């Protein structure tokens, strides 16, 4: 399959002086603001044990479906209300953030590592290696993700680790394609050819000369993919394949809470807002990162 990413490989703009840095920062003000919000979200997840008022797993069947504190029937002890078995919703969202962010970061680390390595190999060695890897990419892109997820979770059990594994393993083709295209372009540039002529080892050329030049699109894609993974987790929860109860994660809270939309709307709405806000700021930051690193990047 054709790739277009090659056209703008490695056109890193050079900042010229403090003036322009400041101007570019201003241009990226939304990205910066998003970064601050994201930092707050991450902090609240990390600090969940000390800021959450309740144990997120503590069931209290006599206090089920309590509405948020500001509504009639609300309870000041539960700011965002309680869920279907009487657990404090705010605490669950704080703890759920830990799980969702961990899944996002871990899965993206796995898929980007696999993708980058295979992409480098395909682009650098070309020919058979390239053909084999790109065939694998095409199979992955065409294979129904649901079937893959279902099988892994059915066979290995629906644990947090397996969820990360499924999403991580399914996500590598996008990195592979981008890295391969960039590598193809860079491989023919003077410094690589010079290195080859000087007798440098393949590993040295690939990791010292090519890798640094493909890193910026990877950073951007990885950032954006974290948001995608969080959404994907909710998709799996919708199909009943998400993170197992009682562990809170935004996706499974949304998935379980969706049948309460007509009466106890808060159960699904607040985790939904958490996902929305987080993916929104991650995306804004990703965009800003892209503009900063390479405004011509096509992602």
């Amino acid at each position, binding site marked *: 399959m054709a790739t277009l990413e090659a056209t703008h490989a490695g056109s890193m703009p050079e900042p010229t002086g403090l003036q322009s840095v400041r101007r570019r920062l201003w241009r990226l003000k939304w990205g910066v603001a998003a970064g601050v919000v994201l930092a707050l979200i991450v902090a609240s997840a990390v600090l969940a044990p000390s800021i959450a008022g309740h144990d997120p797993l503590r069931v209290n069947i006599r206090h089920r479906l309590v509405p948020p504190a500001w509504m009639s029937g609300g309870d000041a002890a539960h700011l965002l209300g309680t869920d*279907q*078995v009487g657990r404090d919703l705010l605490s669950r969202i704080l703890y759920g953030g830990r799980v969702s962010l961990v899944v996002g970061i871990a899965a993206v680390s796995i898929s980007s590592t696999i993708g980058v390595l295979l992409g480098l190999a395909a682009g650098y060695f070309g020919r058979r290696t390239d053909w084999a890897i790109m065939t694998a990419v095409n199979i992955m892109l065409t294979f129904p993700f649901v079937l893959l997820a279902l099988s892994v979770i059915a066979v290995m059990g629906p644990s947090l680790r397996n969820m990360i594994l499924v999403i991580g393993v399914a996500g590598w083709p996008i990195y592979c394609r981008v890295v391969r295209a960039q590598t193809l372009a860079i491989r023919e540039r003077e410094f690589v050819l010079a290195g080859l002529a000087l007798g440098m080892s393949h590993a040295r050329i690939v990791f010292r000369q090519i890798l640094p030049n493909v890193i910026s699109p990877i950073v951007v894609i990885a950032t954006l993919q974290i948001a995608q993974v969080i959404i994907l987790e909710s998709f799996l929860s919708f199909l009943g394949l998400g993170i197992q109860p009682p562990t809170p994660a935004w996706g499974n809270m949304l998935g379980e809470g969706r049948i309460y939309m*007509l009466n106890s709307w808060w159960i699904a709405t607040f985790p939904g807002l958490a996902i929305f806000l987080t993916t929104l700021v991650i995306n804004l930051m990703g965009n800003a990162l892209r503009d900063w690193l390479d405004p011509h990047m096509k992602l």
Partner: protein
Amino acid sequence: MSQRTVFAVLSIALVFLFAAGAGAQTRDETIVYAITSDVDTWDPPNSVQRTAIIFGYQVFNHLAERDLKTMKVGPALAVSWKALDDTTWEVKLRQGVKFHDGSPFTARDVKATFDRVLDPTKKMTARGNHAKVKLVEVVDDHTVRFRTDGPYPLFVERLTAQVMQSEKVMKDKGHDWMQEHPVGTGPYKLVKWTRKQEHLLVRNDDYWGPKPALKYVRIRIIPDVATQIAELVSGGVDIIKAVAPDQMDVIDKSGQARTSSSPILRTAFFQIDQAGRTGKSPFQDKRVRQAANLALDADGIIKHVLNGLGDRVATAVNPMAFGFDPSVKPYKQDLAKAKQLLAAAGYPNGFDFRIRTTIGTVEPGVAQTNEALIADLGKAGLRAQQSFIGESVPYISQVKEGKAGPMFNWSWGYYSIFDADAILYDVFTCGQVYSYYCNKQLDDLVHAGRSILDEKKRAEIYVKAQRLLFDDAAYLFKWGLRGVWGISNRLEYEGPRDEIDRMYLVKPRKS
């Protein structure tokens, strides 16, 4: 993209949008019934789905059918039956009944139906239901004799599980044709089936029994329960089933529909691996199992989580099943005694273990009640780590293969046989695939119960069996379930206890 291309895309989209088609039947004469997944066939004995049983009731008849008021099995296509001896039953058939294609219903059809189902070379799932039937003989046009392999006390109950199909259709049209074209003797006829979307049925005006009040039935397939409720309260659908207890107020407050609940023939429990199928565990000690039973506040959970929609039972035998003994009183929560028993068994600080859970539409609110039950167990020191398996096939596989111990959540629907044997044999005797309990004394009782026809003696045996299971705390006993239906205010209907909706009982509501 050129403007022309944009227009092309748009016009294609519009063509699809206006490719409309609406039925000719009017809404007033139609019942819209929603189910979560479609049947794969209109040939009920060839189906694995419960839904196919429900479908069968609309279009076919059975030799015997259950009266929903008395819950007794009564005549349908058979008018009477009697046991000639321990292994022979004689059944007299109703006269003057016609199939939808106009041909008469006779004894030859009964024989052909059973012969087809019992043929081991055919992939008929219903064969397991009738494995005890050895031979079906035609005596005359309206008399049939069944020879069974040993005494078969469940014979009459089992007659309610087999639809009568036409010999002529089997011969002339064949198996494949029958998958899509049901020819029955029932109150409705199939008009049109659009797979995974809907079925349209029309009243059979030549029906031998009381005619249905509404002319049309539309059965719609709506997979998501949230969407089903939205359809019900916005008037798109008339009857939905398996409403979660938490959703009842949405329906009741809508002004469009109401809920109806009824006890159903299904008991829920946590199975405990007393038999050690998965390996050794503390639960093989009777005191530990008793402690677990004493830890539960089942009454509180029924009241607060299930909105009262559960009937606490002392064992797993359902109050509606033959042989149920109301004199055995359920365990009551007693944490002090539970801890004491645990200490006596050598676990003064409790222990950790794994419990497998799943969800399913058959057990209302199961995710919520599981969380509450596990919290209760924890209070006595039985710290359960939940291992949740969302998919039914892997879950059932694990259960059947004996890998689900030491504890897992389960419920049993008695394959719609209202008899204690339909749970005791399959779920409690040694070596059965669903059983994680093994006790020679119980085995003897159950085997005695299924080898005699005398009802009184059988009832006595089952009383003994229930006392034994209670004292031995065989499993973690919960409750008998209640089903909840959502019903449009324009219709008169009640949720049936055997979970088999009968559209011919639906009537328009007088306003």
